[in-house]
Each structure stands twice: as C-alpha cells, then as structure tokens.
C-alpha cells in the first residue's frame, strides 16, 4: 500500500510539474513574445516594464528565469509569490484568498447534494432493473449527461428566478448575490441554492450511472448470494454488503469532480455572478490581466492534483485489494 501511495504521489507531482512547466513555456518563454509586455496588461508604461523585467529577471537566460519561477512557487510563507494584478495592483495571492471561500462553499454544498442524489437514484434503479423507476433514472442520467452546465443554469435562472420574481414570488436571489457564511449562514445558503443545484444535477447524473452499473455487477457476485442464503434482510444485503464495495469507482469520480469545482466552477460562477476563482479568471482574461490568470491556473492545478492523491489514498482504505498489492 505504501508503494502504491508513493507511486500515486509521484504521478501527482509529475502532473503538477508538467502543468507548471507548460504554463512557464506558454506565458514566459514563448519565442517572439515579450513577457513583460504581456504581464503589464493594458496600462503599460516604460517604468512599469523596467520594473517587471527586473522583478522577473527577463533579461537573464531562460533557464535562470525558470529557476526563479520555480523558486517563487515554493510554498513557504513570505517566499510564495504569484505577482501582482495589473489592474488594481493587489497581490494575486490576496485575490485568490478572497475568491477561494466562494469556491469552497460552492463545492461543499454541491458535493453533498450530488452524492446523495446520484447514489440514491443509482441504488433505486439497480434494485429494480428494467422497471419504470429504472427507466426514469435512465432518462435522468441521459438528460444530465447531455445537459451543458450553462444551459441548466440559465434555465434555472429563467424559471426559478425570473418567472417567479415577475409573478410576485421573489423566492430566489438575483444573480450576483453572495454572502459569506460568517456574516449570515442562512443568507449564505439562500444565495447559493441555485448554483448548488446547477452543479449538482449535472454531476449527479454520472454518479447514478456509475452506482447503478457498479451495484448491479456486485449484486451478481457469489458473496451476495451467500449473504441472502444466510437469511439477511434485503435491505442489509444491499446497503451493508453490496453498496459498500460498489462505491470505489464513485470515490474516484468524486475526487475528480470535487477538484473541478474547487478549481473554479467557471461556467456556474459566470452565470450566477459568484465572485469565485472561475469568475475571476474569466474576467482577468477579458482585461488581459495575465498575472491573475497564471496565479489562478497554478492554484487550480494544485487543487486538482491534491484531490487526485487524496482519492487514491481513500481508495486504498476502501478497497482491501489495493492495500495488499
């Protein structure tokens, strides 16, 4: 198991290094591009360019630049430096620290919702294959898989916010509402409910499909017949014996999805005007705020890689076969 974990951590670190290096090549070391000019953004002055050139050392050989670039990413307080935004001159780390709570809130609520919904629908479908319930679940899954996030978000806004509000039922908040949980937890949940549903419904579809096929496969195993032969109740057989061991593929998927949302639910945040990392990166691209784009991309890549490693560790805990090999 230790060997397995070490291998996964190594793979994660390699992935992270590839991303970090690609970002360096694409943004700083692309031939024919003046990186200082790119980083300066729209309000560019010769003094600013000179400053950036000095700070990043763009007059030095590429390999030295790369070394300094890696140095700035070493996660030690005071050392770690993602540069400054070229519009409001705030450190990029500050901008990310302000936006991150939005992503964490969005991811936490949505993850609970999609796990509960996805697994329940999958279990219901698997317990009565080919029944009406199973067909309904299939429709749910196919709609979810075919549904782009932005269409679901716009539809929810149109029906639940716009139509209800113009008919006098202002139940859901208008896009752009955001309250930190520390200010008012109820208001926080109220502002996030539509974004949660948007993220959760699309992801839940995948979970239902995975749960259904995985559970159906497990229910055909010999040990399930043994459990039934022992006289265990159907409920106990399904939930204690079968479901637990069919959850491993779902854990993998969970890590990927959670990381995706943490790394900026770009579309959802754009539609609902949530001031998270996703919205920040889209806005930064529009105003050519390169330091912010690079910073958010690197942080998001870290989230994704870290989540993958945690999932692999969980995998080892859940599945004894992984532990032994």
């Amino acid at each position, binding site marked *: 198991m230790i060997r397995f974990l070490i291998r996964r951590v190594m*793979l*994660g670190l*390699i*992935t992270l290094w*590839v*991303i970090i290096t690609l*970002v360096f090549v*694409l*943004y700083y070391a*692309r031939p024919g591009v003046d990186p200082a000019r790119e980083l300066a953004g729209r309000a560019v002055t010769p003094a600013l360019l000179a400053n950036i050139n000095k700070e990043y050392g763009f007059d030095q050989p590429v390999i030295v630049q790369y070394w300094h670039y890696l140095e700035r990413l070493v996660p030690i307080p005071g050392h770690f430096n993602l540069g400054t935004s070229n519009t409001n001159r705030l450190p990029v780390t500050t901008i990310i620290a302000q936006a991150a709570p939005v992503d964490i809130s969005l991811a936490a609520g949505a993850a609970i919702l999609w796990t509960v919904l996805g697994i329940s629908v999958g279990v219901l479908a698997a317990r009565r294959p080919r029944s009406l319930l199973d067909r309904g679940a299939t429709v749910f899954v*196919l*709609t979810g*898989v*075919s*549904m*782009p*996030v*932005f*269409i679901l978000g*716009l*539809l929810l*806004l*149109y029906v639940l916010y*716009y139509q209800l509000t113009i008919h006098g039922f202002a139940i859901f908040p208008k896009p752009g509402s955001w309250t930190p949980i520390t200010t008012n937890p109820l208001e926080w949940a109220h502002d996030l409910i539509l974004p949660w549903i948007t993220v959760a419904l699309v992801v839940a579809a995948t979970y239902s499909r995975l749960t259904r096929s995985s559970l159906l496969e497990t229910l055909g195993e010999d040990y399930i017949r043994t459990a039934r032969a022992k006289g265990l109740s159907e409920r106990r057989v399904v939930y204690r014996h079968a479901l637990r061991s069919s959850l491993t593929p779902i854990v993998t998927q969970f890590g*990927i999805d959670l*990381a*995706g949302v943490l*790394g*900026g639910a*770009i*579309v959802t945040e*754009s*539609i609902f005007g949530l001031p998270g990392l996703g919205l920040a*990166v*889209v806005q930064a*691209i*529009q105003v050519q705020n*390169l330091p912010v*784009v690079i910073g958010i*991309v690197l942080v*998001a*890549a870290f*989230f*994704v*890689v870290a989540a*993958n490693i945690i999932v692999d560790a969980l995998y080892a805990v859940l599945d004894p076969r992984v532990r032994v090999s």
Partner: protein
Amino acid sequence: MTLSAVDVARPPAPSEEPAVKGIEGRTPLQLVVARLRTDRVALASVVVILLIVALAIAAPLIAAITGHGPSQTNVDSGTDANGQPLPPGTAGYLLGTDNLGRDILVRIAFGARISLLVGVLATAIATIVGVVVGLFAGYFGGWLDTLLARLMDVVLSFPYVLFAIVLVSVFGSSLPLTILVIAFFSFAAIGRIVRGQALSQREKEYVEASHSLGAGNLRIMFVDILPNLVAPVIVLATLLIPAAIIFEATLSFLGLGVQPPTPSWGNMLSDAEGVGFQAWWFYIFPMLFLLATTLAFNLLGDAVRDALDPRTERLFAGRRKNKPA
C-alpha cells in the same frame, strides 16, 4: 468483447433444399444493424441527427430563402418601432430576431455547422490518435507503455476546461484551436481503453499465428488486432461527439471559442445572457437545438453499445418477439 464471438457463419451445406431458410450466416455488421432497427430510441436519435445535419447543410439555402445572412443585422425589418427584437412567428422571421435584428433561424442553422464540425472533427482526431497511441502502448509494452500510459494518466487528470482557457488566452480563440484542444483532452479516454484491450489481445493465439507466418509488428497491430477493438472504439467515439459539442458550446459561451459575429449555439446563448430574459426566444431555440443534438448522440451511443454487445442479445430477441415483423 470481440466481434468474432458473434460471427458464427454457417458452414455451406449444398444438399439442403431451398425451402429451409431462416438460418443464414450474418456478418457482425448485419447483426448490429438488425438490432438497431428494432430499437425505436436509436431510430429516433438517427432521425434527429439526420435532421440537424440537413439543417446544417441547408444553412446557405435557408439564408437565401429568408434573404438574411447569418450575421446580417436587419435594423429596419428585424426590430420593432422601439428597436426591440421581434418574437417568433413574425413575418419573415420564423424564430424571431435578436437584439441586433439578426434572424435567429438562420443563425441556428449556421451554428449547427459549427457544432457538428467541431463534434465530428475533434472526435475523429481524438479517435485516430487514441487508437494509435493505445495500440503502440499495449502491443509493445515495456518502457514505451510506461511512458504512454503515464502520459495518458496525466492528460486525464488535467483540469481541462482551465487548460483550454490558458491556451485560448495565449493563442487567441479560433476554430482550429478549439478543435485541437478538445481532441487533445479526449484522445486519452480512447487510448486507455485501446491499450487495455491490446494488452490482452496480444497474448492471443491468432497473434502468435500471425507472427509465425512472418507478419511484421505494424501488420499485426493494425490488420490483426485492430478489428477486434472496433466495437468499444465505436461506442466511445459516438459518446465523445456530444461531449465535444458541449465543450465547444461552453467555450463559446464563455467567449473563448467561436468568436462573434460567426454564430455558434454557445455564443448565441452568451449574447442572449447579455440582453436579459424578456426575449425568451433568444434562449429557448439555441438551447433546444443544442440539447436535441447532444441527447440524440448520447442515446445513439447507448443503443450502439447495446447492439454491439452479444450479451444483450436476449434484450433484442425479446423486442423482436413482442413486435413480430
């Protein structure tokens, strides 16, 4: 799963009288087509896809009949006295106009071209690259396999929407770049499956036989092994098309894909978002076409998977019994 498993041709028996028919050798392709023809959902999906293809092909014709180009703004006839967009059903504008007085029907028809082009081309590139990489990795094994398999792992664990954004922000958005980005993030899904299959196929006797007949590695890989992998590749490719279409629409919706004034379903919805919900026809029509397309491809993919899988033969036999031809 191998196609040869169902390919049981009847040995020739010339003595039989011609009255005894009903047992005919059928090729795997004939079997699959026969199964699909009993599947009403699959047939409906094919009809929907053909209609969308027809719409895309006829786009210039529709433009000629209505007299409106896809990005032509009709300031006089396309808006009402207050400069507001026209609702659907207005004379000359079947699906209404947008805020610039552009004909939504014509724009949807031209948008269909973009969606289908991206979906099919990105999937084709991803499939070819995935098959080649997967075959080389699985067939040769050793360090080449380790390298290619790790590469595919890295690609699969990439935060791909984010990385698409990076590339677009560096190189500027364009249709070829969009297609390449989607293909790059899709090839690993196919490559991994092909690699796994190739790993098991290369141990089979027929590969040994081919070796002893003096066949080279390339011949064994592409002439002997590849036909056995066609089934899973076709299924995955069919399911990659809607994913690619959604990916393109999402990028265009965020302003990072197809650039205005060229119409795509994604950027039409992004235009609509800027206007507000009063003009519901801005939203509904691009949404409906996008959903119909992705749903049809997903349903067809599921149906093809069932039809290619010999284990589901009972299901199809049941259908044939219920509805005698």
